[in-house]
């Protein structure tokens, strides 16, 4: 086994895992609070990629050139608008179905996903789009020869650092503030929280806004890294992130982060050493295995019966 390839794939895996984790957080939080899988969440990520390109173009038109400023501004603007998308999706597609059967919002989510995909396809065209590279270069470690090195690009460093910072901020928000306390209360017993005067609809909206912002972080970072995207990228990435959420234990915030990391690492190691074409097969097989031996996921609690 080649140590350089292993290390390189570990680096790639952590980067991929951070992206999965950021998106998985949205799935797991929404599931935790209203018990549904928000299938439109992948599209939110896709929209964030488009918004990144739009804001990048706008800032360039305004003459702002400095990469750090551009990256930060694009990130903030994309998060804000994507959060608005998340909020609207909940208000339009899920809130009216709050008191209906469990299946109804699920169908509505699939519909929402199709609507968003096709909206983007019509508005932006079906062709693959791209943005210029903002961050190039990187650091090479353990270099001993032209083919023998481990490369970490600056964009990869940006992804991991931003992911850690935003996950930290989210963790603090949920565990350390009054709003997060209300979120956790609504997650545990929505009716009881309402009976104590907590505005549960507002808390649910907040959760969608937070989930969408985290997906926006992922969308922006990935776009900065790869530079190309189309209207369909939300589907596969969404499914992968959902897998990560289930792997880590859906409903659990650290579970989503861990699940993303495990999935990203195993995918890149598999594609580095075995076969790139079958990496998705490996990822989903891993999910199957985990669910057989630990049905509630890596960090999930066994289903507690709700009164």
């Amino acid at each position: 086994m080649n140590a350089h390839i292993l290390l390189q794939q570990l680096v790639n895996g952590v980067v991929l895992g951070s992206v999965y984790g950021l998106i998985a957080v949205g799935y797991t939080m929404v599931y935790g609070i209203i018990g549904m899988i928000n299938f439109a969440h992948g599209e939110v990520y896709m929209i964030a990629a488009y918004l990144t390109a739009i804001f990048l173009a706008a800032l360039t038109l305004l003459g702002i050139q400095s990469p750090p400023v551009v990256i930060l501004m694009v990130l903030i603007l994309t998060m804000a608008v994507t959060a608005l998308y998340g909020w609207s999706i909940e208000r339009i597609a899920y809130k009216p179905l709050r008191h209906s059967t469990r299946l109804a919002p699920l169908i509505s989510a699939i519909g929402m996903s199709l609507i968003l995909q096709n909206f983007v396809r019509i508005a932006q065209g079906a062709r693959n789009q791209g943005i210029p590279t903002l961050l190039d270069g990187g650091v090479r470690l353990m270099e001993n020869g032209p083919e023998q090195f481990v490369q970490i690009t600056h964009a990869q460093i940006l992804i991991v650092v931003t992911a850690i910072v935003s996950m930290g901020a989210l963790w603090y928000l949920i565990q350390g503030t009054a709003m997060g306390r209300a979120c956790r209360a609504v997650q545990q017993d929505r009716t009881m929280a309402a009976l104590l005067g907590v505005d549960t609809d507002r808390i649910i909206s907040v959760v969608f806004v937070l989930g969408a912002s985290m997906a926006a972080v992922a969308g922006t970072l990935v776009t900065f890294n790869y530079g190309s995207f189309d209207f369909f990228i939300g589907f596969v990435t969404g499914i992968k992130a959902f897998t990560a959420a289930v792997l880590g234990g859906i409903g659990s915030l650290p579970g989503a982060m861990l699940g993303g990391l495990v999935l990203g690492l195993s995918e890149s190691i598999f594609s580095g050493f075995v076969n790139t074409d079958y990496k998705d097969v490996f990822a989903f097989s891993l999910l199957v295995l985990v669910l057989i031996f630990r049905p509630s996921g890596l960090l999930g609690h066994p289903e507690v019966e709700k009164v």
Partner: protein
Amino acid sequence: MAEILSVRDLTMRFGGVVALNRVGFDVRKGSVTALIGPNGAGKTTVFNCLTGFYRPDAGAMRLMGADGVPLDLMELMGRPFQGSDWVSPRSFARRLYCKMFGGAALAARAGVVRTFQNIRLFKEMTVMENLLVAQRARVDNRMVSGIFQSSGYRRAEAEALERAWYWLDFFRLSEDGNRLAKELAYGRQRRLEMARAMCAAPRLLCLDEPAAGLNPNETRELADWILALRRGHGVTVCLIEHDMGLVMEISDHVVVLDHGQVIASGRPERVRDDPVVLEAYLGAPEGAEEGV
């Protein structure tokens, strides 16, 4: 004394079953009113209607507001539109607001807070967090002020914490502040549920079988607490209870329900000797086919 709550003709059906049939009673401000009756009489359904848990089919529920203006609880919970709602833009706007945002949370903010027969705590949260969540009116729930820890936010949190400690001391739970709610013993969980309800600053506290599962000593303490709440904190208490000793001891007014109807109401000693009530509890005196 003025009525804090008046219920008139409250009717609730589940399919063909009439759970409540034109139930009416009053709760006077500062009193302890007990709702009693055999199992299935509709006592808990009354509570569920009062707190917005269910939407009653018909009837009226009025709660006297803190400012002396009566609040229509049915409206707060978002009852369907009626012809009269369209008359003035103001009443229409209010109806629309309640329809969109109404429900249990508005009833709770109006001051109706309840506990449950099977305790419903936020089990994965600490005792203290349970009490802080209930103080919705006091704490600053906004995301931005939470992230930046604004001075208003910190002040609100400090006040909420102080208030929570007060009720922890009151219900003798102060040493459990940092434990998870699910780790507490049953009797303590019951006390925590009452402490949490008190943190929500109720004007009408609805206790659903607060003595269920408690031993005689704990029931004794409970009676003292309820009386202290009423005397020292101006809380009006409405309770459902099967422990007749407790009911007779602490309540000022007793309402007896059977098959979804009020069959008697009045002072505890009068209700206790009422033949209709005895029959509902024990069956007909002679030749009765049905048992208890």
